[in-house]
């Protein structure tokens, strides 16, 4: 039962609960029209303390396609946050007006703190700093299921900024619930996965894992290559960002090393880590992935509101 629950971290739901959610997401993909009045009279609040295109728009589009309404802010300067209001005061105020809320925040753990003050309104983490981004993982997993049928017994490559890449952290945390997962983690030394992901998730769950600094030797065996952007906003030092940003660029030449069914995913936005010529390759699935994000968020809203 997901009614009234928060989704802050992939470990908040069991594997069975995720299954329930994805089963509904597949129904939404097949017939989104069927759900167009499901959320009539319901209000979604979007609290974006950090810029967003896909996540915010896909949540808003999801709620509108379900027949609901939206309130919120897309940058903190247009709310009382700019007057120094605390997260706890803001979220308790929002609970007076909305049925469900989505929060993105630059500080890690902000949605968890917010959720502790709520009495009945479900809260969804839409990305907290370099920490977690569980609804991007829902998007990624729905895409995996639509392309390959299931998640288990597959090789997943992750490339780029694995240290601050919150989408990577959530994805790996989710995959740790499944059997036969092999991870190939490609990044510069400075941007490797955080210690808690390596020690508590990968090692504790005995997940087969290779850490490398080149993608070509491993691309042939991957079912998915998940590219990520080196994020300027996570660096305190501009020089470090400039030094690391162009380290891994996936282009047409490198795609020759990929298998015929090695799909390329990316949470977007990209800067230059996937060259535009790759977009034409049928294995490039990142724009379809963005569309799937709306469908799976429709399913999530329906589940947390207890409508389905």
């Amino acid at each position, binding site marked *: 039962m997901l009614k009234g629950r928060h989704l802050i971290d992939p470990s908040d739901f069991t594997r069975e609960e995720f299954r329930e959610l994805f089963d509904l997401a597949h129904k939404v993909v097949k017939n989104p029209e069927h759900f167009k009045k499901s959320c009539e009279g319901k209000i979604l609040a979007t609290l974006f303390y950090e810029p967003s295109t896909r996540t915010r728009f896909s949540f808003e589009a999801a709620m509108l396609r379900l027949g609901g309404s939206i309130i919120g802010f897309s940058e903190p300067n247009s709310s009382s946050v700019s007057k120094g209001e605390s997260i*706890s005061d803001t979220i308790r105020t929002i609970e007076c007006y909305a049925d469900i809320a989505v929060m993105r925040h630059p500080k*890690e*753990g902000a949605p968890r703190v917010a959720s502790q003050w709520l009495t009945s309104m479900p809260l969804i983490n839409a990305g907290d*700093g370099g920490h977690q981004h569980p609804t991007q993982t829902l998007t990624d997993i729905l895409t995996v299921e639509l392309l390959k049928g299931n998640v288990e017994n597959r090789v997943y490559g992750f490339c780029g900024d694995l240290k601050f890449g919150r989408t990577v952290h959530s994805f790996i945390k989710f995959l740790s619930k499944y059997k036969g997962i092999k991870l190939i983690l490609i990044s510069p030394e400075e941007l490797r996965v955080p210690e808690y992901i390596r020690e508590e998730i990968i090692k504790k769950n005995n997940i087969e894992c290779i850490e490398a600094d080149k993608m070509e030797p491993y691309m042939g065996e991957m079912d998915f290559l998940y590219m990520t952007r080196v994020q300027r906003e996570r660096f305190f030092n501009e020089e470090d960002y400039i030094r690391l940003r162009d380290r891994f660029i996936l282009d047409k030449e490198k795609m020759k090393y990929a298998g015929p069914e090695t799909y390329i995913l990316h949470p977007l936005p990209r800067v230059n880590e996937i060259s535009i010529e790759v977009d034409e390759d049928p294995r490039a699935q990142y724009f379809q992935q963005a569309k799937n994000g709306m469908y799976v968020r429709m399913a999530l809203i329906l589940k947390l509101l207890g409508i389905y």
Partner: protein
Amino acid sequence: MLQITSIEKGIVIDHIPGGFGMKLFHYLKLDKADYTVALIINAFSQKMGRKDIIKINNVIDLDVNFLGLINPDITINIIENGAIVKKLQLTVPERVVNVIQCKNPRCVTSIESYADHVFHLVDPAKRSYRCDYCDDIVIPHTV
């Protein structure tokens, strides 16, 4: 040899790892005490080589979580009429609240003053802890 007389009624905190005695002394606010206290630094110990000891000639509330974080081998002796009447056994705490602070500048606790600093034990052997909010791992006794 330096002589420090025994206390009549109070607490002796023994087997404090060398160098932590002063920190503990300040954490327990013993520098502001209006009763007799003694901080012994670099005392000889067969087991530890060097150790620190604190003797408190008064009965005070002790934060055993904090002491367990520093080192679960610290011993606490309760003294009455000049004799040990009770020995407290410390454990490495599973969860600590507002004892240590998260040092991750990206953690929400750096801006949200209402949020408690909550950590969970990750590895009892290393005595490492994970922040409940940002998942950053710290080893408090090395900080």
